[in-house]
């Protein structure tokens, strides 16, 4: 119970960030870049192993953007130039110019590499079809629905291959799912195509949402676990969940990835104790709010350590190995369940 994990991305060490910039300018060849991506992946997997994260991620050291990465690997997409997403931030929004195909697996090689470095389970990390559709231009498919469903078939094949390779956990991120409330059923339908027939545990991560509008649909999401940002919303979602009959697992974001501030162990432990008043211990997977790639490597490491330490304290309390320091009622109630 209370298995710790991450949402996906981890920051790239300086040497890799530099190497990627050099590779873009053609000053570094593909093989040399790949060696450094492997080195960074190895370092992150070892780090998670050492501090005791239960379900490990490869840290996506070889990805730039979560949609562009797939777009670069899948024929049918073409690269475009810069568009702004906010402030002074730009990205290359992919264009669907033809039927999207998957002649070979996209993530299985990296997953296999990461899994070879640890005895802990490594999560397979995919971007969901609705999000890929919403974050791309479309010049080929006749409608948004046709686009999402076509992409869903492609991502399903990838998920099947991850499962065949041995992945026990497969996360399909859908941060765009709450963009258009009138399309939520389409997003759910497309995600259902991806997860259909999978035996691996399936997870989806959602962020930037209008949670109140999404809440009634949460149980309809065709996954075992829903990962949400709680910390950034000051844990107000606990109140919303109390009113829901929510029986899926929850990836519980307990540290804010948009803030430089390092949460204290006691603060995170306390929020986990509050969570126990809303969820059963075996429902809860403590993790950061979102991918940590926006933090520095040191900040990311510190935040992950805090999660592990806080979870250990609360786990011990639940096992009776440690006397709860605060909020004994919630913990006691959780132990009875």
């Amino acid at each position, binding site marked *: 119970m209370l298995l710790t994990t991450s949402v996906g991305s981890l920051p790239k060490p300086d040497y890799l960030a530099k190497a990627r910039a050099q590779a873009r300018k053609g000053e570094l060849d593909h093989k040399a870049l790949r060696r450094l991506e492997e080195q960074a992946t190895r370092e992150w997997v070892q780090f998670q192993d050492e501090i005791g994260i239960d379900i490990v991620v490869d840290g996506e050291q070889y990805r730039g953007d979560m949609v562009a990465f797939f777009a670069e690997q899948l024929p049918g997409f073409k690269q*475009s130039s810069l568009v702004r997403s906010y402030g*002074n931030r730009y990205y290359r929004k992919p264009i669907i110019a033809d039927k999207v195909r998957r002649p070979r697996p996209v993530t299985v090689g990296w997953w296999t590499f990461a899994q070879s470095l640890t005895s802990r389970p490594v999560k397979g990390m995919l971007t969901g079809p609705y999000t890929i559709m919403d974050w791309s231009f479309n010049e080929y498919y006749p409608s948004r629905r046709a686009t999402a469903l076509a992409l869903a078939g492609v991502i399903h094949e990838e998920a099947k291959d991850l499962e065949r390779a041995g992945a026990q956990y497969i996360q399909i991120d859908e941060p765009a799912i709450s963009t258009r409330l009138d399309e939520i059923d389409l997003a759910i339908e497309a995600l259902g195509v991806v997860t259909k027939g999978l035996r691996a545990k399936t997870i989806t991560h959602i962020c930037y949402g209008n949670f109140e509008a999404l809440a009634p649909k949460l149980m309809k999401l065709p996954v075992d676990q829903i990962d949400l940002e709680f910390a950034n919303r000051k844990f107000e979602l606990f109140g919303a969940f109390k009113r829901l009959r929510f029986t899926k697992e929850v990836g519980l974001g307990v540290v804010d990835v948009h803030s430089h501030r390092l949460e204290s162990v006691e603060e995170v432990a306390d929020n986990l104790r509050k969570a126990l008043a809303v969820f059963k211990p075996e429902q809860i997977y403590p993790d950061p709010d979102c991918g940590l790639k926006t933090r520095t490597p040191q900040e990311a490491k510190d935040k992950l350590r805090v999660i592990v330490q806080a979870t250990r304290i609360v786990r011990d309390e639940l096992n009776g190995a440690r006397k709860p320091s605060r909020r004994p009622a919630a913990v006691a109630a959780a132990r009875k369940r």
Partner: protein
Amino acid sequence: MLTTVVGNFPKVAEAGYGTAVIGAINRWQKQELSDGGLEDVFQDVTRAVIKEQEAAGIDVVTDGQIRWEDLVTPLARRLEGFEINGLERFFDNNVYYRRPILHKTPVRKQPIFLKEYLFARSCTSKPVKAVLPGPYTVVALSEDRYYRNVRPFLRSIAEILNEEARTLAKAGAVMIQFDEPALGFGKPPMKDVVEAINIATTGVQAKTALYLYFGHLDGTLPALRPCRVDLIGVDVVSDPKAITAVRKQKWTKELALGCVDARNTKLESVTELHALFDVVKRVVPKGRLYANPNCGLEFLPHEQARQKLNRLVEAVRRYK
């Protein structure tokens, strides 16, 4: 039929006027570049996007809103009473803006966009229209911790926009446009919205325009009839039903048809655009029609934005 744009333009053009804005803003944020240094870059890019609109054959141009981070914070940042908060999604786009929070009575101490407008006008002999966020969109995208009531908030923003519009008109702006994308979402309080728009346009010695884009417009259009504006811009791309709503409306104002999709790279054909012109020609005389993209061009990469403008002008020129 005249051609125009809705407002913003890509701030960077890898195969055009370059990406200097990105580095300049980064350096300015780190205080390695002075305000004047940043302004120089903004002016260079503004001049370039105005030249591009001229080259494409656009009749009424804008400054491309190169300095604008989003639709509402350029105004809110320069008013007293607002604090600028965290990122929020900009309607149904994968684009984010910073949400203004209102803490006290909003106050405009001095002209806000006047200098920028005067610079843009000095770059071209074409008419340059000034673009402002509409009162309802400012209110809808802000968090109100002061009035805690839509109507007084709307009225105070409308009064501020009115002062700004009068200033711009006095400075020679031929057309002043209010963008109201928020009217496409949820159930706007239309009576209060109309009142606010009428406050904003009162006594403005220029052509006034109200632009609607994104969301669903079929319910909103009829309710806007009592608005005292000269021109209404309607996005007929985002909602396929909008063109029917336009056709059913009894038009007493000019109409700007948002007919080229500025949120997708797929290039429209001249035939498709002519089909839309055919529909609106029956409800509004050609002399009272404008054609423009459905919204600002900044959602597109620069190359596609340019192609879309060229196609728009081509379609209008070939329309008999």
